[in-house]
């Protein structure tokens, strides 16, 4: 490890922290401009202005926004995500199991989608412009063009209703075994895989094809290296950086963007929690969810940057 490399990595990490700070402001401000507030929600339409004012004072909503922001941020820095206004439970406890569920669904989908996408990408390059390439391109393009709720409902129609292999409700609970959990999430997992596969596969294909015109690829061909080895060993390592980036964007999507899929399959994840609490105006929960999503997103992108840097031998081994 060179000092240059360490400095580059530290720069990325520092940049990530700064971005996260800026995002915390944005999250607070957008929660602030939501119409209505939790006092209104709790008391309902018939509440008198006096009641509302009393409740707001009780909940600390009458303090100036800057002070509330500083309180919130101070709590987070100390590891305290705050307390739900509606049911008075600590936010961390509310989010805990939901976040694990989301991670579970995302990880299983990623474990299937990422290797599949890269393998299909490599195959598409190997048989470039021939029927396997066209077939892979056409299918993945179709999958990417369909909205995920459509894919989800079609899967439910065929594999839950016509063929009752799986349940259309992907409820999981703490008492279920790993096998039962996996069985429960087959359909949402398939939906997610469909949605992210195409993007990653097409990027893999494009990145490798970009590298294939390099002189060192011609050299490998002239050395009599077999076509698949040319792609896998000579082209792939040099195309890794854009591939890592698109993989990470999709991983982030699997965690952050699953709201629709969770709602379709009634899966108890973060997305559901987020949507529920926006409608309840339970701002501490909403803000905490937003911040966790942002952390995941920034963390993964930072990881992509760092992996790209480490993947470059010129940075790993300076002259």
């Amino acid at each position: 490890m060179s000092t240059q490399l360490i400095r580059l990595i530290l720069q990325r990490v520092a940049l990530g922290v700064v971005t996260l700070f800026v995002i915390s402001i944005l999250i607070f401000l957008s929660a602030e401009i939501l119409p209505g507030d939790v006092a209104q929600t709790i008391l309902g339409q018939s509440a008198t202005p006096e009641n509302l004012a009393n409740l707001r004072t009780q909940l600390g909503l009458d303090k100036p926004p800057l002070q509330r922001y500083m309180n919130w941020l101070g709590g987070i820095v100390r590891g305290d995500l705050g307390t739900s206004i509606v049911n008075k439970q600590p936010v961390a406890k509310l989010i805990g199991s939901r976040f694990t569920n989301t991670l579970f669904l995302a990880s299983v989908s990623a474990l299937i989608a990422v290797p599949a996408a890269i393998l299909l990408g490599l195959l598409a390059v190997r048989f470039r412009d021939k029927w396997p390439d066209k077939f892979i391109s056409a299918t993945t393009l179709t999958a990417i063009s369909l909205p995920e709720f459509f894919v989800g409902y079609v899967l439910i129609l065929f594999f839950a209703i016509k063929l009752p292999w799986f349940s259309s409700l992907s409820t999981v609970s703490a008492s279920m075994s790993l096998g039962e959990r996996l069985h429960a999430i087959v359909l949402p997992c398939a939906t997610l895989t469909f949605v992210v596969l195409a993007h990653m596969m097409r990027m893999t294909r494009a990145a490798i094809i970009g590298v294939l015109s390099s002189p060192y690829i011609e050299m490998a061909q002239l050395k009599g290296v077999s076509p698949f080895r040319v792609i896998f060993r000579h082209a792939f390592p040099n195309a890794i950086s854009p591939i890592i980036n698109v993989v990470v964007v999709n991983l982030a999507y699997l965690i952050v963007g699953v709201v629709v899929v969770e709602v379709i399959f009634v899966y108890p994840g973060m997305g559901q929690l987020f949507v529920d609490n926006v409608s309840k105006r339970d701002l501490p929960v909403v803000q905490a969810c937003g911040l966790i999503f942002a952390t995941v997103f920034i963390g993964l992108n930072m990881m992509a940057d760092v992996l790209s840097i480490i993947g470059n031998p010129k940075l790993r081994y300076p002259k």
Partner: protein
Amino acid sequence: MSNLLTVKDLVIKAQVHHPGEKPVAVTIVDKVSFTLEKGKVLGLIGESGAGKSTIGLAALAYGRFGCTITGGEIILHEQDILKFRGDKLRQHRGGQVSYVAQSAAASFNPAHKLDDQIVEVAISKGAMGRTEALKYAKTLYKKLGLPNPETFGQRYPHQVSGGQLQRAMTAMALASKPDLIVFDEPTTALDVTTQIDVLAAIKDAIREFNTAALYISHDLAVVGQVADEIMVLRYGKMVEYGSTEQILYHPKEKYTQQLVAVRSVFKEEKPRTKAEPLLKVAKVTASYDGKVKVVKNLSLELEAGHTLAVVGESGSGKSTTARIIMGLLPPSDGEIFFEGKRLPPKLKQRSKELKRLIRMIYQMPDVAMNPRHTIRDIIGRPLTFFFGTRGKEREAKVIELLEQIEMGADYLNRFPAELSGGQKQRVCIARALASKPKLVICDEVTSALDPLVADGVLKLLMRLQKETNVSYLFITHDIATVRAISDSIAVMYQGELVEVGQKSKILSPPHPPYTELLLSSVPEMRMGWLEEAISGRRMEAAGN
């Protein structure tokens, strides 16, 4: 003794597709035949577009950019390799025939260590196990004079110098013990002082391992050092084919004679006068990042109507010197005087008149012209910009300039893409001279051109100098060009001036060590030059 390789009536065609037209098949190689014995070297020589690389790649049954071998046969070990397919073809490529490319920097995979790339073929062909292959690679590194042969291969391509990388590629070609190696301009991208070592290493290796070779180059002097026989090619056809001795000393064809002839251009040196120099660079130092000094304490003088050649290898700071004088890189220290007055360091601070008087011609005419402008616009633009000339008057001036560069009114409506390399550079010259400058900086203006075309461009530049009394600051790495056209010479090395003076003084001994090294590294058009030059050089230079 039977022949290792027989090429008979080889025809190679390429599909050329002009937008909006039907693709046409163009013949790249037209009925070329030759034979090669084991352990012998055949030199293929010609200008760009002669088809020499295409023939070299055909020996690996490979066609680049839609080139297809449409006729003839290539017999290696009594088998027609053009009939090979699949595994058999892969066994042939890299196994029996290997390839050494022009740019080793681009042809090594940046993601893998040198060792892994060098032993890949021997292992995948089943010729050796990994341990054995690595051991053999180390033997090769040692043979090719690479430093620390034990650990050399554990480095990545970007960690070694260009000359070392080219030798490493020769090691890669030898690693599978092939019968034939195709060397495609292996030293063209190197500096002369590096070229000589690589050339000697290649020659020794070929002899030591008794491998046959096709040696492709545009430089007859280089080919003359390594080849037993030479084939001269032009426009895909064979011009002449004979022993190296015959081609170098008794060429039959006129084209070969032209190639062999030392530069036909030669300028008598103009003596220095007492007059105020047109350009005076006084103790200039400059850097791009504020830390590394690319040019250090440089002083030069150039008189009106004279040519000063600035010569040096890559990294010597010669192009940076051009940028400093043009005002593109303000120096951190020192001053420049033009016609006795201090020249503002930044281009922005310079008047239009100064910009008119100092002009530049670039190495790559292709990228120095707007491809969407006609020749009329390209040459006419400075006329309008500097003198406000328009309409018929401008048209007449443009035609006059075109005639000066021996082209004429026919070219007015053409686009740069419709011209040859030499014509493009001529148009760039006309564009520079259109503003009637007093100083023209020529940055490697003939480096991208074939020798005969380059000669024509040099002749033109000299004629125009006589007619207009313009001064040239001529930046080049090519000693032959320097010899041909300069009045005075500045030799640069790593940003510093080694020596400066009149041509006759610089080119005659005694020389400072670097000038000596530089001059003695320029290949000469005679057999046995390489051996003499190498034995005359000190061993420490071989470390490079």
